């Protein structure tokens, strides 16, 4: 008759069998290398890309403003109103 291994016996056997699992040789060096010179995480990469994506986003309103100034569509009107106020020298 085959005896069933009890929960306690199985846990004890597996505990003993895995007691001497050890890190592979060179593990410490590998960890210290990743700590001293970490690879960029996904977030770092996204942030870097995102930062560059912000440049055109920031430039667009500025460019638009410059174009409006150059064409003078509203700038001339604004100057006219400002200079027509009587208290201005």
């Amino acid at each position, binding site marked *: 008759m085959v005896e*069933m291994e009890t929960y306690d016996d199985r846990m004890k056997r597996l*505990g003993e069998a*895995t007691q001497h*699992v*050890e890190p*592979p040789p060179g*593990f410490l060096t590998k*960890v*210290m290398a990743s700590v001293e010179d970490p690879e960029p995480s996904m977030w770092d990469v996204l942030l870097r890309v995102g930062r560059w994506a912000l440049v055109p986003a920031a430039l667009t309103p500025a460019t638009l403003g410059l174009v409006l100034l150059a064409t003078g569509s509203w700038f001339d009107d604004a100057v006219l109103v400002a200079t027509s106020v009587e208290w201005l020298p």
Partner: protein
Amino acid sequence: MGTGDVQAFREIVASTAPALFRLAARLTGSTQEAEDVLQDSYVKAWNAIEQDRFEGRAQLETWLYRIVTNTAIDALRSQRRRGRTGASLSADTPAAGQAADTGAALRELATWLGDLPEDQHAAIVLKELEGMTSTEIATVLGCSEGAVEQKLVRARATLRGRASRG
């Protein structure tokens, strides 16, 4: 980053790596996965220390156990999402100097505990294999002692039930 800090951290890694590697292997069922988990954990710990997020309220070793356990739980979730269980870890080659028996025992452990929810899986490994007290497990898992006891009772009931069914 000071040279002294790096040296101090190197000493921490050297003194804690054996126990933490064993924990990660027991949780993930694979020495290769354990290597990744532990490396990630040390990088997280280093970043936290650099950013003054380690407040010293917990002992350093307990805090590292917490980081490794959480990282291993994330790895377990990821394994399960990919449908990778202990049985399918058999393709992993044993790490250098690793006995084949140890690899087989890790895979058996992963298969046996594989159906438990991740938190029960972690609680049972910390209690039965790492020999921690419920108070220590509560600190590592970030829950109350009562919650730890509940996880252990449920996990044991599941595993014993499975044994009695063969």
